[in-house]
């Protein structure tokens, strides 16, 4: 069919634009599959450029940055309460967990310590955000691999946790509850009993997922032996969280680092799995949720009484200095390096986000796997784009 002049011109322009924007060079090492920023499988706007030979990947490149919001620059021109609000939105599924290392770093600079009741409630909310985050992961994992039902069940059972977070902080997703010196407010009446009931439901959810997803033979053939990360490689790439523990490395900042949360007074276990494949990572996360429900139960039982806030001035000016605190967030190890010049806001905040390092292993890991395995591996590595790009 013949094209008009303008149609030919438009077509040529489109081709040129394609060539400029995409890095797709059709070379000899196979077809280039651009799993672009908009894709049902990547948890957000991640771009994966895979060179395929048939269905096998010869090489893969990860291009992140499509969701960069300039957090570190924003933090330079905000006060500490405002930064606390903003960092909720880095890892938006377990939002309270983002505030904790920042507040702890600021408290370290101010040399103020939160009272024990505040520490314990902080830990409860930290673990609740872990449960909320990882229960969605389990549902999403099944969805990536093709089963649609577990995703809805995960959303359904996660509501219990979100309701508990809302009744304390006022926000389901963005609590904005941590303050330098303690917490914003105390627990409302009946919250402890409701939370323990919610934990019972969450344990039933874990059993449900184990029966529906983890025990399923198809799921196991899709995840066992896929994407094996040896322990040394995991450590050298800076992986953290369940990705590291799924390769058999016994490393958990809640136990190993001396941070200002209540873990030392509790009886809990760090779960590892020696295989290092996708199934190991996913399994470790399931056990983490179960362990988190037990931790919350212990915390609720032994909650100390007392004030919720230490004595801090109304307008907080953090003295000069630098502090780095990293905590075991649901996604991995998240750290904040806070530099203060004695002002009402930080001078510079560097955010070490877990997913950024977790995704760095993807090019190494994705060599030689099949296209469906890309999805299984990315799902098991579990990153959140807000965490990668900030």
């Amino acid at each position, binding site marked *: 069919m013949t094209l008009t002049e303008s149609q030919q011109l438009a077509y040529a322009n489109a081709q040129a634009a394609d060539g400029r924007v995409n890095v797709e060079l059709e070379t000899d090492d196979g077809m280039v599959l651009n799993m672009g920023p908009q894709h049902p499988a990547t948890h957000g706007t991640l771009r994966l450029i895979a060179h395929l030979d048939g269905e096998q990947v010869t090489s893969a490149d990860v291009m992140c940055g499509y969701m960069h919001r300039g957090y570190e620059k924003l933090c330079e021109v905000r006060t500490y309460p405002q930064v606390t609000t903003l960092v909720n939105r880095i890892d938006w599924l377990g939002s309270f967990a983002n505030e904790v290392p920042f507040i702890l770093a600021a408290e370290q600079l101010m040399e103020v310590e939160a009272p024990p009741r505040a520490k314990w409630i902080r830990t409860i909310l930290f673990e609740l955000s872990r449960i909320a985050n990882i229960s969605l992961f389990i549902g999403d994992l099944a969805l990536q691999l093709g089963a649609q039902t577990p995703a809805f069940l995960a959303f359904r059972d996660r509501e219990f946790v979100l309701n508990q977070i809302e009744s304390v902080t006022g926000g389901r997703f963005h609590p904005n509850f941590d303050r330098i010196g303690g917490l914003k407010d105390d627990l409302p009446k009946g919250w402890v009993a409701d939370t323990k009931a919610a934990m019972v439901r969450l344990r039933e959810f874990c059993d449900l997922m184990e029966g529906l997803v983890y025990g399923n033979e198809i799921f196991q053939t899709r995840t066992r032996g896929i994407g094996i990360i040896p322990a040394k490689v995991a450590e050298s790439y800076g992986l953290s969280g369940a990705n590291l523990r799924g390769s058999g490395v016994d490393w958990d900042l809640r136990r190993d680092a001396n941070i200002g949360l209540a873990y030392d007074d509790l009886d809990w276990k760090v779960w590892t799995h020696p295989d290092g494949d996708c199934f190991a990572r996913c399994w470790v996360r399931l056990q983490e949720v179960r362990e988190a429900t037990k931790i919350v139960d212990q915390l609720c039982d032994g*909650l100390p009484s007392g004030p919720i806030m230490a004595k801090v001035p109304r307008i907080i000016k953090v003295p000069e200095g630098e502090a780095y605190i990293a905590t075991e967030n649901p996604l991995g190890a998240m750290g904040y390096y806070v530099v203060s010049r004695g002002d009402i806001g930080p001078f510079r905040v560097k955010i070490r986000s877990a997913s950024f390092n977790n995704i760095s292993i993807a090019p190494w890991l994705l060599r030689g796997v099949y296209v469906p395995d890309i999805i299984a591996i990315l799902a098991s590595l579990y990153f959140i784009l807000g965490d990668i790009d900030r």
Partner: protein
Amino acid sequence: MPRPALKIPGLFTGLKITMGIFLKTMFPARGIKTLLPAPTLGAVTVQYPHKSPPEVPAARARGVIALKEENCTVCMLCSRSCPDWCIYIEGHKTKAPPRRPGGKERTVSALDRFDIDYALCMYCGICVEVCPFDALFWSPEFEYSEPRLADLLHDMDRLGEWMETVPDFETYEAGSDAKVRKVPR
């Protein structure tokens, strides 16, 4: 390391679970009415807005901010501390009669304009927290979406109307030594 047994039952367990959920959603009633299908009861979703959800939002839920105009002294703390700069305040100073006869005249500030732009608001609550004079309160109301973006700018009168929906502060859990504040009505 615990490994689930790799036999056929894994597949059937999954089938049993989904059929169980299906039957529970379809026939939620117990007792005499067990065999009557009643999916609207059995599902966890609600046909909003035809029906309202069974659980109202928590009392502390951050739905909308209400303004108690009489308490505001136009100190501008809320406007300054908003991360989005979505609060617009204008005020002027007037003279008020002295407290005791024969005393000095007092200078008081009066509000001309207090607007909150809910199109920008992040619902962080910093403004409510920093207000030293108990003029801002959270209300769990959330049904105020508008067809026009400009209507999301709530002015002083509208913010005052939200005061009726502000619930009383809740009592605290055992072991807390915080005091329950009062909402000025």
